[in-house]
């Protein structure tokens, strides 16, 4: 299968999520998916990161599902593009 790249925004929406090593856990659970943090802004209450994920399509999909189920908001780099 061909490798794919996904550019996403991850939002850690509260203090509890900010203080958990969620990306580390994702990397342990999905070792074939690489991630590259291109931009990040983290405070005690909220964190956002622009991240490039790369790997087999299904692996990347599973890694992103892992992050969603951990409580992160995962959105395409365009964020919400469905306008009125």
């Amino acid at each position, binding site marked *: 299968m061909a490798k794919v790249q996904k550019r996403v925004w991850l939002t850690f929406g509260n203090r509890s999520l900010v203080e958990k090593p969620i990306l580390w856990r994702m990397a342990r659970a999905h070792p074939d998916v690489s991630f590259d943090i291109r*931009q990040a*802004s983290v405070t005690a209450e909220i964190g*956002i990161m622009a991240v490039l994920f790369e790997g087999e399509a299904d692996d990347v999909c599973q890694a992103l599902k892992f992050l969603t189920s951990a409580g992160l908001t995962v*959105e395409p780099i365009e964020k*919400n*593009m*469905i*306008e*009125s």
Partner: protein
Amino acid sequence: MSYVRGLKCRECGQNYPEKGVHVCETCFGPLEVQYDYAAMRGKVTRESIEAGPRNLWRYRDLLPIHGEPKSGLHSGLTPLKRARNLEKVLGVRELYIKDDAANYPTWSYKERVVSVAITKAIELGYDTVGCASTGNLANSVAAHAAEAGLRAFVMIPHDLEQGKVLGSLIFNPTMVRIQGNYDDVNRLCSEIADKYRWAIVNVNLRPFYTEGAKTFGFEIAEQMGWQLPKHTVCPTAGGTILPKIYKGYRELIDLGIVADNQPRIYSAQAAGCNPVVEAIRAGRDLIKPQKPKTIAKSIAIGNPADGFYVVQAVKESGGWGEDATDTEIVDAIKLLARTEGTWTEPAGGTTLAATIKLIESGRIPRDESICVCITGNGLKTVEVVVDQLEPPASIPPSLEAFDALMAGRESVDPAPASV
């Protein structure tokens, strides 16, 4: 002559040539059009603008195109109304309504951004344009693409009401209903934009598209006799229009076209979807995504693409953010209609309701000029008010019945107030 000098990342400053690209390859920050403002000085003037066409392209020197405009030749120059009746009701000295409910051809402010995007799409060699939209944007893309002879793809959620679909379908775009929830549709639209070489106006043409929103601010300034309102209240959805109105004001100030009265800009959102207002109140730059729950669907965007820049513009100007409940939104729609004869969609109701709260809280002084930005037309959202209006009386076809009705009304309805 064009003053455009390419694109630049708003975060890391990396430069890019003009093409259909919207985020920086390095830091994924949004790209913005760069202009040679030094070259504009003395050439872009009140007179040069006033000599332009009677549409939004009279500001073309400040827009990102090189050739002749290809779309929107009848768009823009919408009414700026002195709202004297509303002034009396609200107890303020100087209030204006900038009314894009009257923007041709599909009756919203989207004509501005889409006109620029379609012209740019043609300049860049695209033959297909598209968007993901539930209303105004889809209407505008479909209409402008039809006139420009481009293929148009409109992606919509599968459960969108028929009435909303018709406003686009009449212009014969290829419309695709996408099954799934909002996030599924959003993700697929991102993948489509990535894979197909189309000009998705609010995605890969976003740097050019958003510049069109500056014309809303340019028109306010010109129609006020080359002055700026002290306070401008603007709805926030994806975050396109507010920072661009403010940018437009700053451009006019920096070019010496208007005096710097230190204009303040305010963000209005529905209480059921207020991520930007919530960030402003909390003193945060970062936006916490929300799941929308409001009747103001046209501005219900839970994680606005440019929300961060709305917060920046509001903070830099000294403005603020305010939200409105659904009841307040409907009340404001009705108030605007009965005092000024303008029927706006819930986005406009939100903006007026927020303005009222900003005045009542003292954030906006009653003796300074205020402009309320109306961005869409109420005829598209009749469902919001259909159960909120008093039904008409029904009488037999006789003068006696009419007289009896009038007598009854006069007993409960005193003479109308002067407003």
